[in-house]
């Protein structure tokens, strides 16, 4: 359980995130946590609630709002992912998502740079209002300037014992990412790992110049994955095909039925160019405070109920 300072720190953090997006002209929205559909992604399992699902991310609803003409929106909300429990995982966690019409994933990387610098610059002042002083944020990390952009293929050739193509063929992409690549990312300044194989970005747009790659990136600080952003796939037919594939994988792996998000696909037809990103802000707060595990960053962790 967070102590008094911890509560104030977390509150200041959330407050400033909201200030940042409001100042940039974003509209804060809220969408249902519990829905009859979820995003069919074979590696993300939803928790159920009666016959419905707790959201794994607000992505479907956020994009429907975007398609309805709301061009800059953000939300901070709880998300739930079944059986994700560990040093960096909680089954319930706070997600920040934001979406921009008419933008691509490069713009979101700039947003990340600006957001973290804004937090860094304003946290001390915000906390001093409540007479809380003496804390350091993002210690040891240089947030200035343009952060490194590293493609997935380059990351594999730089850090992995086998190249990307081979890793994909042998089904070892995730293992190598976790064991050989992530530990090196973001130890001096944050790093954007980008241009993922297209099969690893189910809702991301293909790169025009190289359709084997999706315009997707992850933000890393101190080896911790903090955000996943991409240029949105807005071709509803292709999105349906990818969902069909994911739903079949879910069925064959786990024998679960996943419903097709029909209303989302119908609305997607009205979505033009856009980009969106999901940032785990419990993790961001953990990194900002130099904690070692996510449980230290949340108001109540599962251990507080033992």
């Amino acid at each position, binding site marked *: 359980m967070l102590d008094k300072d911890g509560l104030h720190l977390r509150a200041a953090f959330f407050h400033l995130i909201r200030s940042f997006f409001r100042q940039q002209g974003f509209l804060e929205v809220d969408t249902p946590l519990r829905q009859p559909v979820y995003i069919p992604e074979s*590696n*993300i399992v939803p928790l159920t609630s009666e016959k419905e699902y707790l959201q794994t991310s607000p992505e479907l609803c956020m994009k429907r709002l975007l398609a309805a003409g709301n061009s800059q929106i953000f939300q901070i909300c709880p998300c739930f992912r079944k059986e*994700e429990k*560990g040093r*960096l995982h909680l089954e319930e966690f706070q997600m920040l998502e934001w979406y921009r019409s008419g933008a691509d994933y490069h713009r979101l990387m700039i947003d990340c740079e600006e957001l973290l610098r804004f937090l860094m610059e304003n946290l001390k002042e915000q906390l001093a209002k409540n007479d809380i002083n003496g804390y350091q944020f993002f210690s040891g990390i240089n947030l200035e300037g343009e952060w490194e952009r590293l493609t997935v293929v380059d990351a594999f050739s730089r850090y992995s014992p086998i190249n990307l193509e081979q890793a994909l063929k042998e089904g070892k992409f*995730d293992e190598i*990412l*976790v064991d050989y690549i992530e530990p090196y990312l973001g130890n001096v300044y944050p790093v954007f790992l980008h241009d993922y194989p297209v099969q*690893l970005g189910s809702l991301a747009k293909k790169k025009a110049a190289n359709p084997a790659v999706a315009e997707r990136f*992850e933000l890393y600080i101190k080896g911790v994955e903090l955000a996943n952003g991409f240029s949105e796939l807005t071709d509803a037919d292709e999105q349906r095909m990818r969902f069909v594939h994911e739903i079949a994988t879910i069925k064959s792996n786990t024998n679960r039925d996943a419903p097709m998000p029909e209303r989302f696909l119908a609305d997607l037809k009205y979505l033009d160019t856009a980009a969106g990103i999901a940032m785990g802000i419990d993790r961001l707060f953990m990194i900002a405070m130099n904690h070692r595990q996510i449980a230290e960053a949340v108001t109540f962790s599962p251990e507080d109920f033992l």
Partner: protein
Amino acid sequence: MLTASDLRKGLKVQIDGNPYIVTDFEFSKPGKGQALYRTKMRNMISGNQLVKTYRSNDKFEKAELDEKKMQFLYSQGEEFHFMDTENYEQLSLTREQLGENTNYLIDNMEVELMFYDNQPIDVTLPIFVNLEVIKADPWAKGDTSGNDTKPVTVQTGYELQVPPFVEEGDKIQIDTRTGQYVTRVKE
């Protein structure tokens, strides 16, 4: 049947006919990627270590172990002696077999002995044990260095970090799962 999501420190599973105990465990998962359960295990008979990464769909058998309540009598060199309080039969385990458990064993403590194929292989300790502090630096009042813990040694020779107010002769409660200080106890 157990699955990878049941893995946790202390779990006992059967692999290729041998009982293993999970000694270290970390869940990791790239956001859009597969869940990986990185596990270190110790063969409970040979003591050999096994390091392996499992995925969500991997399944395990629970290790078939018999447990019996026994009393720890004393240790002599590398041997730790236990007694069945019903029939007074005695048997012993080595320091190597007991691993970190030796940090918490004090004379007359009641523990569960584990048997595999009728051979004693390990003990299950109570979750919380109370041990006496035999060595502690005095707390320098007015110490403003900001250190909120100090090291002490308990009667088994185990060293751990505790709050500065703990003194020599105090009894403290320790969580045997994590080896960490829980509270000071008055007896």
